[in-house]
């Protein structure tokens, strides 16, 4: 039985959240506590640094009952304790159900949001009603805290078909939870049918449920940095061009090759076949996001 003590409170000076007012947009940020207090506070800092008028984070920290995070009393977060896997799933579901937030995201402690992430997500959801969940360009956080980026946008685009294949093929490619935001309304529509299987990858179950009714849009912006995923080994990172070819058949591989390598016209075979949704891009001229059939 171990309880983390906040032994160095000066490191944990997270800005205070103010109470939401009428008309504010609430973001549900569910943080999975992984046992390291400093990492948790880095994550919290990145949440409360999201400065945008009218946007308020609603932060929940999910932790095992025997592993309580030390939180500075001034930080307005809610702790949700769970006993075991089954308890976690029901607590998570109840918490999301009861949240008043319009938009939701779940991440692990240690993962951090980029500045402006919530603001951008809010703008995209407000402008594009057809976008019900979206993901950003993934980066990984190195041990020293800086961010590294790998691969291409092609490998970050998703459809139900790709996702289904990846789940079973274990290709190493995954949708980063910390960069993936969803409308609460979408959750409400699938929550009753949701069946969580694995606690470590419970987001994959969630994504699968979302995919059945909604297209996932990829935005060419950086929303967060992930901690490295256990499934990806060192060799994977050294060869970013090789780990996202998931097709079995040679013709499928060829089409995917054309797509990933951006071969004019030939790339469209794969894009259309797997029913990719448009990209979300930013127009610097009008300072707004638009959808592009790239």
């Amino acid at each position, binding site marked *: 039985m171990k309880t983390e003590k906040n032994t160095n409170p000066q490191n944990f000076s997270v800005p205070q959240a103010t109470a939401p007012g009428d008309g504010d947009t609430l973001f549900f940020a569910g943080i999975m506590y992984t046992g390291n207090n400093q990492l948790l506070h880095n994550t919290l800092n990145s949440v409360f640094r999201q400065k945008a008028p009218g946007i308020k984070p609603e932060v929940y920290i999910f932790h095992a009952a025997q592993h309580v995070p030390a939180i500075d009393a001034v930080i307005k977060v809610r702790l949700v304790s769970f006993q075991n896997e089954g308890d976690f799933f029901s607590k998570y579901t109840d918490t999301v159900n009861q949240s008043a937030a319009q938009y939701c995201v779940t991440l692990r402690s240690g993962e951090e949001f980029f500045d402006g992430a919530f603001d951008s997500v809010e703008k995209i959801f407000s402008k594009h009603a057809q976008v019900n969940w979206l993901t950003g360009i993934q980066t990984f956080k*190195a041990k020293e805290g*800086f961010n590294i980026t790998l691969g291409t*946008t092609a490998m970050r685009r998703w459809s139900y078909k790709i996702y289904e294949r990846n789940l079973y093929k274990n290709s190493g490619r995954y949708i980063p939870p910390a960069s993936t935001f969803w409308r609460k309304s979408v959750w409400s529509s699938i929550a009753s049918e949701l069946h969580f299987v694995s606690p470590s990858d419970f987001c994959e179950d969630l994504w699968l449920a979302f995919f059945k009714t909604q297209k996932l849009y990829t935005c*060419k912006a*950086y929303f967060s*940095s992930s901690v490295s995923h256990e499934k990806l080994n060192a060799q994977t990172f050294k060869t970013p061009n090789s780990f996202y070819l998931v097709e079995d058949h040679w013709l499928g591989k060829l089409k995917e090759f054309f797509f990933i390598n951006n071969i004019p016209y030939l790339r469209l075979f794969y894009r259309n076949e797997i029913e990719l949704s448009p990209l979300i891009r930013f127009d610097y001229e009008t300072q707004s996001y638009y959808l592009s059939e790239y």
Partner: protein
Amino acid sequence: MHYPKISIVTISFNSAQYIEDMILSILDQGYPNLEYIIVDGGSTDGTVDIIEKYKHKLTVFICEPDKGPADALNKGFKRATGEIMGWLNTDDRLHTKSLFAIAGIFNSLPDVSWVMGFPTWFNAQGTCLNEIHYNPAKRYYLPQYIGDNLHLKFARWSKWRFAMGDFSAIQQESVFWRRSLWEKAGGHIKEEFLAFDLELWTRFFEHAQLYTAQVLVGGFRVHGNQLSFNQQQRYKEESRKVIDTFRNRLFRQTFGYTMRSILARATKPFYYYETPVLKKIYPALLDLPPHIVYDLSTNSFSVSEK
């Protein structure tokens, strides 16, 4: 880990809108051996008040009229004593802990004399974006720049490629170099150019290859009021002159330049589109350096031809 002294120079003139964000992007990193120098040209819009808030964390703060940005940079770099050097404009910003990445690269790769991070951009609100605006009707940049899988291939230079003009821009916000290279290249910015950054790169290229790392180092904020946007035509003309001069210098140095550039143009699509075997011709012709990659399992930098 050894933390080499990193000197960063910022020049400002009436830059109140973004300067605090930029300063914090450097200071909040907590890099233990930072030498931060700000040179203000006599701002009157509150910029100086903002800088004063952080004066106790600056190594040098100069506030006096100057003859332009290059002159101000020279004032700053004359005071710099770091082993690693770079500059950051007031609109732009560094990414989280990027100075630790720069230290790691220069520590572990002694052959690297200057390095650029993975290019990124910020919008006016500070969101970090993966591409520069591309609107077919208003071409700010070449379309290749946003061809996402070409991104890293595009951000790969050698003096040959630079001289051929087959580039958009080396992202200055993401570039850091060793003092030894700065000294070999003359140790100053040439004040007669508006495109003084490009001119400096040509001198760097004479002595060392530019490596690109898959690390987010810095980003360029696109808000429309940049000096390079306001004087876009003049900047472009000057850039062309700088590149032409550099090309002529290379041409005099070697008769192979013309043949090399013709072959390179012909084989570029093979490189961009990953044609097996043939894709190796273009980087070989232009002597493109390998990328710097980071291995998350060993927490170390290395170079990779991939």
